[in-house]
Every structure is written in structure tokens, then in C-alpha cells.
């Protein structure tokens, strides 16, 4: 199949030209048909008139001889070389023949007194009119004929002219269509130009609504939506880089400061050892931060890499409780796992999310209380919750808890802290699962809830 041109205006012009050609063609065919019918009708009228005049002549003349002696009369009457005339008697004998030679009187069915018409196909083609009249010495058949060649020639010339006009019309229609399309598509080019003018530094700009066309609104809205998302993503990225730089400054500052201080004079081996151990802690902090950042960058960038398997929640909870048991006991806390059922999720990621939540609960929970890991099926989906008792988180912090590097208390910063990425990772893991994480905090403690969408495969334990 031939490909359409790549240019929209050319395509439109071509369609316009095709449409015009079809329309013009139909009109040409109609006009030609009418003309041809009109000419044929007139010719027939002329033939019939000639028969009538012949009949009048025969009526006036005493006999055929008288008629034959006035050949000029028919000459004048017939007037041109296209016309033929025969007068036959009942025996089929040609009594009078006028016109170009070489034509024999045709065999025709008898006429009932009215004028009959017929076209004789052949080379050359003839149109005949005939009738039977009573003459002085018996009945006569009058035949008037006309050669169709001239008419055909004229019509053929007319067809040719029509065809040329049609072609010229189509070409004109194409050019006209092209001009219209180019002109009509100018708003699209303007829109493209305005969109192209928006670069990284002007991401806050939007394509204006003023003077825009209704058809382009959808495109413009889509572009504006894309710009909004780009701007948000870009702002997030910029904020993120800035945060990262800030967060790296603290450990780097410790590293540089304490190393320079230690090197400022000779020290004991133990001092050097202490310095190296302290440095090691800072390095690990940096490495963890980079790891977490990479993890976040990857999970946010693609929706891939989810390995969903059936995860027995009770078993996973028990494993996690076992892991944190020692830590909990040291703080005088207890871990209680009431989660149950089997959920289709990425085991490693779910483990990581819950481990982060449990570590958080252990960090901020009141000593002597119990941390509960539970699961429930609700209208909004499958929920896994970690609950701890302890000082409530201020309502103003709740919406920001899951942002990277967010700290409720900006002054609190220690090497043991999660570096402000733990909860961001939890959120990111839940986004990968198509779910979300929510935090509630009040007098009855703090609760972090992982919510998996209702269509996640979940099997309730049978017992």
C-alpha cells in the first residue's frame, strides 16, 4: 500500500483534492449525460420533421416523377452531407435516394403510419426515422437518416474537455487545500513553538488558554499536564540533590574534623584506633545513605522488579519479631505478632518495610510497653499495622513523615538514626505494590499501616 505523505497539510490537501475530484466528476457525468440526451432528442426531432416535410411534398406532388424532377428541393432541404433520404415502394424498390453514396436502403420493419425511430449500429452508425404513406401510385416508405459520426466526434471532444477541466480542477483543489491546510494548521505550529520555548529554566511556564482553538485544547491540556508533572519531578529532584548534599555534609564534617584534629599532633595508638573506628562509623553511615538513595531512585523510576510470591504473614512476623527480640528486651519492650493470612507480595521488600517500621517503633516506643504487629482485611484493602505506645507525633508532622530526610525534630540527629530515609523507603515499597502507607498518632499510641489494594491476592488462614 502506498504510504500517505508525512505532512498533515499535504495529507489534508490530498484528501481535499480527492473529494473535489469525486464531486466534480459526478457533476461532469451528469452534465455530459444531459447534453448527450438533449442532442439526441433534437436530432430525432429534426429527422421526424424531415419525414413530415417529405410527406407533405408527396401529398402535393402528382407522382414520384414530379418529385424526382425537383431534386434541388431536397438538396436544399437536406442541406448537408450527413443526411440521407430514401423513398421505397411496397416492393422494396428504391424510388428516390438522396445523400452520400454508398449507403443501401436498410431493411426496416413496417411502420403503422406513425414515425418510427431506430439507431443502426455499425460503421458508420445511423439514426433513422421512417413511416409509411399513401402515394399516388400505391404505398411508399419514407426513410430519413442521419450519420452519427459528427455527433460522436463532438461529444468525444466535449468529454476530453470535461476530463481536462476535471484534472485541472483537482490540481487547483489540491493547491487550494494545501494553502488552506497550511493556514489552518498555523495554530498547531504556534502551539509547538510555544511549547518548544519552554526549557528547563522555564518549567513553571504554561501554554496559555487565550485565543486557543477548541480542537487544540485537549493537546494543550495534555502538554500542560506533562509540564506540571515534569516541574514537580524536577523540583523533587532538585530538592533531593540539595537534601542529599546537606545530609552528606554532617558525616563528612565529622570525618574531616576529627581526622584533622587527630593529626594535629602525635597521639597514642589507642587514640588512632579510636579515630579509625569513629571514621568507620561515619563511612558506614554514608554507605547506607547511598544504598538507600539508590534503592529509592530505582523503585521510583520503574514499576518493575517486583517478585510477588505468597508470603505467610504470621511466619514473616515471627521472623521479624525474632530478629528484634533482643533489642526489644533491652528496652524493656515486648513484641506481639497477631498477623495472619497469606499475601501476594515481594517477600524481601515487605520484610524490609516491616523491619523499618518495627525499628522505628522500637526507637520511639515507651519502655515497658508492647509493640503489636497485626493484619486485617478492610474495605480499603489488606492492612498490616505496626502499633506502639509512646509520645504522640504532632499532627503537623504526619503528612511529611514519609518524605526523605524529614525529621520531626530538626535538632535531633544522631549516628543511630535511620538517616531520615527509612520511612521514605517504606512508602516507596508500598507504591511498588500499588498500595500506600499511613500514619496515625494520638493518645492511644502511634500506628503505621501498610495498605495493599483490595485486588491483591490474599488468603485468610484456615484455622
Amino acid at each position: 500500500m502506498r504510504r500517505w505523505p508525512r505532512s498533515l497539510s499535504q495529507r489534508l490537501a490530498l484528501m481535499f483534492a480527492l473529494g473535489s475530484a469525486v464531486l466534480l466528476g459526478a457533476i461532469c457525468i451528469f452534465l455530459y449525460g444531459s447534453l448527450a440526451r438533449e442532442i439526441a432528442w433534437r436530432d430525432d426531432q429534426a429527422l421526424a420533421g424531415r419525414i413530415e416535410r417529405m410527406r407533405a411534398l408527396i401529398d402535393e406532388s402528382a407522382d414520384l416523377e414530379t418529385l424526382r424532377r425537383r431534386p434541388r428541393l431536397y438538396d436544399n432541404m437536406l442541406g448537408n452531407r450527413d443526411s440521407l433520404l430514401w423513398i421505397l415502394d411496397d416492393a422494396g424498390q428504391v424510388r428516390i435516394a438522396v445523400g452520400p453514396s454508398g449507403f443501401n436502403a436498410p431493411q426496416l420493419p413496417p411502420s403503422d403510419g406513425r414515425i418510427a425511430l431506430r439507431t443502426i449500429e455499425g460503421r458508420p452508425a445511423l439514426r433513422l426515422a421512417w413511416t409509411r404513406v399513401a402515394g399516388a401510385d400505391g404505398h411508399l416508405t419514407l426513410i430519413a437518416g442521419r450519420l452519427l459520426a459528427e455527433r460522436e466526434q463532438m461529444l468525444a471532444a466535449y468529454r476530453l474537455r470535461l476530463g481536462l477541466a476535471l484534472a485541472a480542477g483537482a490540481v487547483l483543489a489540491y493547491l487550494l487545500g494545501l494553502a488552506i491546510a497550511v493556514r489552518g494548521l498555523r495554530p498547531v505550529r504556534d502551539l509547538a513553538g510555544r511549547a518548544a520555548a519552554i526549557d528547563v529554566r522555564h518549567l513553571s511556564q504554561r501554554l496559555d488558554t487565550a485565543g486557543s482553538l477548541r480542537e487544540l485544547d485537549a493537546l494543550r491540556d495534555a502538554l500542560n499536564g506533562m509540564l506540571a508533572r515534569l516541574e514537580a519531578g524536577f523540583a523533587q529532584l532538585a530538592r533531593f540533590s540539595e537534601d542529599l548534599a546537606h545530609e552528606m555534609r554532617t558525616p563528612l564534617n565529622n570525618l574531616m574534623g576529627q581526622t584533622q584534629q587527630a593529626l594535629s599532633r602525635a597521639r597514642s595508638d589507642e587514640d588512632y584506633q579510636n579515630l579509625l573506628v569513629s571514621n568507620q562509623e561515619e563511612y558506614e553511615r554514608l554507605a547506607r545513605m547511598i544504598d538507600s538513595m539508590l534503592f529509592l531512585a530505582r523503585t521510583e523510576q520503574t514499576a518493575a522488579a517486583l517478585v510477588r510470591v505468597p508470603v505467610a504473614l504470621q511466619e514473616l512476623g515471627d521472623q521479624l519479631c525474632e530478629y528484634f527480640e533482643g533489642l526489644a528486651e533491652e528496652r524493656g519492650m515486648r513484641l506481639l505478632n497477631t498477623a495472619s493470612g497469606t499475601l501476594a507480595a515481594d517477600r524481601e521488600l515487605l520484610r524490609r518495610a516491616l523491619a523499618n517500621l518495627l525499628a522505628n517503633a522500637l526507637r520511639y516506643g515507651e519502655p515497658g510497653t508492647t509493640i503489636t504487629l497485626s493484619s486485617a482485611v478492610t474495605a480499603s484493602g489488606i492492612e498490616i499495622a505496626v502499633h506502639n505506645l509512646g509520645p504522640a507525633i504532632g499532627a503537623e508532622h504526619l503528612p511529611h513523615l514519609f518524605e526523605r530526610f524529614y525529621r520531626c525534630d530538626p535538632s535531633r540527629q544522631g549516628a543511630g538514626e535511620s538517616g531520615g530515609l527509612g520511612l521514605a523507603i517504606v512508602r516507596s515499597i508500598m507504591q511498588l505494590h500499588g498500595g500506600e502507607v499511613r500514619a496515625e498518632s494520638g493518645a492511644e499510641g502511634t500506628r503505621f499501616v501498610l495498605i495493599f489494594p483490595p485486588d491483591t491476592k490474599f488468603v485468610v488462614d484456615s484455622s
Partner: protein
Amino acid sequence: MTILIVEDEEKTADYLRKGLQEAGYPVQVASTGHEGRQLIAKEHYELVVLDVMLPGVDGWELLRLLRRSSGTPVMFLTARDAIEDRVKGLELGADDYLVKPFSYAEFLARVRTLLRRGGVRESERLQVADLELDLLRRRVTRAGERIDLTNKEFALLHLLLGREGEVLSRTTIASQVWQMNFDSDTNVVDVAIRRLRAKIDDPHPVKLIHTVRGVGYVLEARA
């Protein structure tokens, strides 16, 4: 038992060489891909540690070359831990990989594993000094006295005993004992070690579990 290190970053090559030499392995260092290629063609090595990003001939190329001629174990080091990179390395026939930054203890442990691979079968009874662990009966005794351990304490002791004399990082321990395959900033491992010590070491004058500051833990009988 010579180990070849192909690494263009001078500091990295230097500390890896020092570390492996201190652990008792003869080491050669190549700082470019070309040099590495020449050495590989000429000598036989027990293990090749390969940086992937090398000037000239890169690590992948060397790995292909190595695999064509020998079954020498290869560990590759990379700063890019994109999954495709790891897959590529393992597909090309590398035996192990480490993503920078890695812990030195982790590196040494993996080197030992690679050199040991196909070697000793793990025994069912492990012993260091007067501490004994019977894997089949799940029993631990010290100086003939039975010690009761929880499942995880048993697993932890088994890991330390099985890798006697090796310094194990917290990450390795968390991953081997609790399947926590991500760096956690909690001190769970320290707490677990503390509890294990309370049962194994505290009642006895000779201590077996030692802290290597900034690195991890090691179980060994020290004179």
C-alpha cells in the same frame, strides 16, 4: 595460592593487597587492563579479583579471556550495582561480585569462600578450644557443660564457629542468621552477640568471641 588483583584505583588496590597479604595470601597487582591481560596469559592464579571499570581493556573483556582458558575463580568489583551489571558478570562466568563500597571483612570472607570452594565438607561437629557444637543433636557444650541456646543463638554460634578466625561483618551476620539482606542501622546484631556472650563467654575466664572494632565479630581462641 597467588591472588591477582586488577584494579586501576591505586588506593583500593593498595589496601586490598595489604589486607590479603596480612591474611597470608601472596598477591600481585595489575593497575591496567593490558597489564592484567599479560599477567593472566603468563601466570596461573588461584583467584582473580577484577574491577569492571578499567581503562583500556575492561573487566568484562578480561573475564571473557579468563573463561576461555581456565576455571580460575573470579570475583568482580563494581561501583555500579545495576542489576544488568551483576547479571552480565555472572553470565560471563564470574563466581562472585561485590558492589563498592563493600566492607573489608565481607571481601575477605568471600575470598576465603572462593578459595575453599569445592574443598572441605562442613563437619557435623565444630570445636574451638573447649567449646563444642554438635549440629545433629543441636547441642552446645563448653568445658563439658551443656549450654541452652535459642534457635537464633544456635544459628549465630554455628556461623561464628564455622568461620572460625574470620571477622564477620554485622551485615553478613544479619543476612546469614536472620535473612535480613539489607543494611540496617539498628544494633540488633550487637545485642544478639551480647546475649550469646553472656551464655558462652561470661562464665569462663577465656573469651572466644571478640569484637573487631569498626568491622565486626570473630570467634577464635586467642593465646
